[in-house]
């Protein structure tokens, strides 16, 4: 399946300055696209910069460098007024549904608010549209006048989704929307997201470290490590064959539901290193089981592995051939 491009991110970087000589390289020179109606899964460990990418995409964090093009318009150079006009087309859903809802506003007020802000509809029409959207994400009309704290976590997240989708956005950044939910609720929320995408044709950037959820929802998957993109490819190809040792390690850490299968040996030791003043080298070199001296010389570029599948590893061709 191919998609017409909606978002094009080129050489995006975000540095958080710590003091005169130190900065955190949260996102370093990342490029990717998201198609219309496509879901791009963004995976990586905690601290890999996934959330920062999502927030830069919505200009909630100002990128330090690089450009973001959204539906043909340059998002990075947009003024505050232009940005406000784009807001209804760019939305996000949070990890912690309760924290993301204003505790002092009812569900109805919360979901109607984007409409009241961005359309000229009457208050009654906004309320009706909000109620309709809440029904579509599977919330009973009796919830309309409730406060967030009166709802279950799954219902709260449905409200978060309804609020994000009520203005019919083109892109929704889903920032780990299922990671605080139990497995059944997670399946429900993924269902809702899938159904709404089919109905509205919205694109998702699905940020998660839950690989099973990402596999289920995403058309393509991008893997981040220490603020860098290390591999990107279609879900099917990436799940079958990982061309970067980090992706291999990440996938091997997912236990199979079949208990008779042996636990895979590829698990990487240690933790993600510090992102302060990153050096120009492969970020994974310290933990990589197959690293060679050249890995320390420079950050490897994205190698085309064929079939729109890219991996940032100098040894990717050997890895693919099975030589390692």
């Amino acid at each position: 399946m191919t998609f017409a491009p909606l978002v094009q991110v080129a050489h995006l970087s975000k540095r958080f300055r710590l003091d005169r000589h130190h900065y955190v390289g949260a996102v370093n020179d990342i490029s990717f696209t998201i198609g219309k109606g496509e879901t791009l899964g963004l995976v990586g460990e905690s601290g890999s910069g996934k959330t920062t990418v999502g927030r830069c995409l919505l200009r909630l964090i100002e990128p330090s460098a690089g450009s973001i093009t959204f539906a043909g318009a340059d998002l990075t150079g947009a003024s505050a007024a232009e940005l406000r006009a784009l807001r209804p087309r760019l939305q996000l859903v949070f990890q912690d549904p309760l924290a993301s809802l204003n505790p002092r506003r009812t569900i109805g007020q919360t979901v109607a608010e984007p409409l009241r802000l961005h359309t000229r509809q009457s208050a009654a029409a906004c309320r009706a549209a909000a109620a309709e959207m809440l029904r579509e994400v599977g919330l009973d009309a009796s919830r309309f006048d409730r406060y967030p704290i009166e709802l279950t976590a799954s219902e709260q997240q449905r409200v978060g989704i309804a609020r994000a989708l009520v203005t019919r956005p083109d892109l929704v950044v889903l920032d780990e929307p299922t990671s605080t939910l139990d497995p059944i609720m997670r399946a429900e929320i993924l269902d809702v997201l899938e159904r709404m995408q089919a109905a509205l044709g919205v694109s998702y950037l699905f940020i998660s470290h839950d690989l099973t959820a990402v596999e289920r929802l995403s058309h393509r998957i991008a893997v981040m490590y220490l603020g860098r993109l290390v591999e990107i490819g279609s879900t099917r190809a990436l799940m079958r064959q990982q061309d970067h040792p980090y992706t291999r390690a990440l996938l091997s850490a997912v236990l199979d539901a079949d208990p008779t299968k042996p636990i895979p040996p590829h698990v990487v030791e240690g933790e993600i290193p510090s992102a302060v003043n990153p050096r120009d080298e492969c970020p994974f070199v310290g933990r990589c089981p197959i690293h060679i001296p050249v890995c320390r010389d420079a950050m490897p570029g994205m190698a085309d592995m064929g079939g729109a599948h890219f991996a940032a590893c100098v040894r990717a061709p050997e890895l693919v051939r099975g030589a390692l």
Partner: protein
Amino acid sequence: MRSLIYIGRRLLLLVPQLLLISIATFVLIRALPGDPARLELGPLAPQEGVDQLRRQLRLDQPLPQQYLAYVERLAQGNLGRSWVGSTEVSADLAVRLPATLELIIGGMLLVAVVLVPLAMVSAMPGGGIAGQLARKVSFGYGLLAGALPDFWLGLVLIFVFFSLLGWAPGPEGRLGILDVSPDHVTGMYTVDALIAGDLATFWSALAHLALPCITLAFVYGAPVFKMVRSSLESALKADYTLYARAVGLRPTTVLRYAMRNAAPPSIVMAGVVSGYLLGGAVLIETVFNLNGLGQYAVQAVTTADYAPIQAFVLISAVFTMLVYLLVDLAYFALDPRVSRGATR
């Protein structure tokens, strides 16, 4: 409608509260060693007088009657007599209570107009040079505020602003030695002077109030300040605030939402501090010679003067109760969940 029911229910709660307070103070009287009539008249009074007062106070009757008699006396504003000063306690309080209330109100007003805005500005990110300055000042204040005792700060202020600079009057009380106190209406000299239209006395009362109020605001405003700063900080960092920005709300609206969510804990803290200060400002009252309620209570304790102590306990309980009533009503106005009973 729902608000009326809530307010009605909350006011109704005052009845059992008052009842419990009156029982508590009554038990306090009875729990004291010795004869209340003898305590009130002092050790040197003749036995006949004591017996007469016993009958008058109905102390010769069973406990329930004694309680009723006590409540009756309270209703008439009769709080007994101080045996040390041979004065009516109610007359003493008419002077002492307004002095302390004036101090508390003035101090808390300073907290509201100086410290709370400072806390809010320093909680907001950015803000340029003004914001940076506010954060520096706020950091310094946060360090100092918890560490300086009120009497010490009061003395330093007197030394600097009276002895050195001569900007403020000395610690001579609530008015200058030559000033005549205004006609008693509220007992608060600033208010009474304004009612009497006596501007000279008003300014004098205000000048005498300035240093004590600054001392009180600086020392006892600290918990309120810290609460405002930290709750606004966390409200501004919360996901719903990020969302409010993401949905395209104007920055002022975003800030208003955050402030509304940050306000309740700060209001509770302000209420707790105010309730405490009725007796807790005694050192400030002493340093500035204000003759306030705290001083009165401490004097009564040191001379075992029971009637004033009982009156003080009663008044602080009622005052605290009223402050908490105000806190609850403010909470109700700010938080729609309260009326729904939806809070967990």
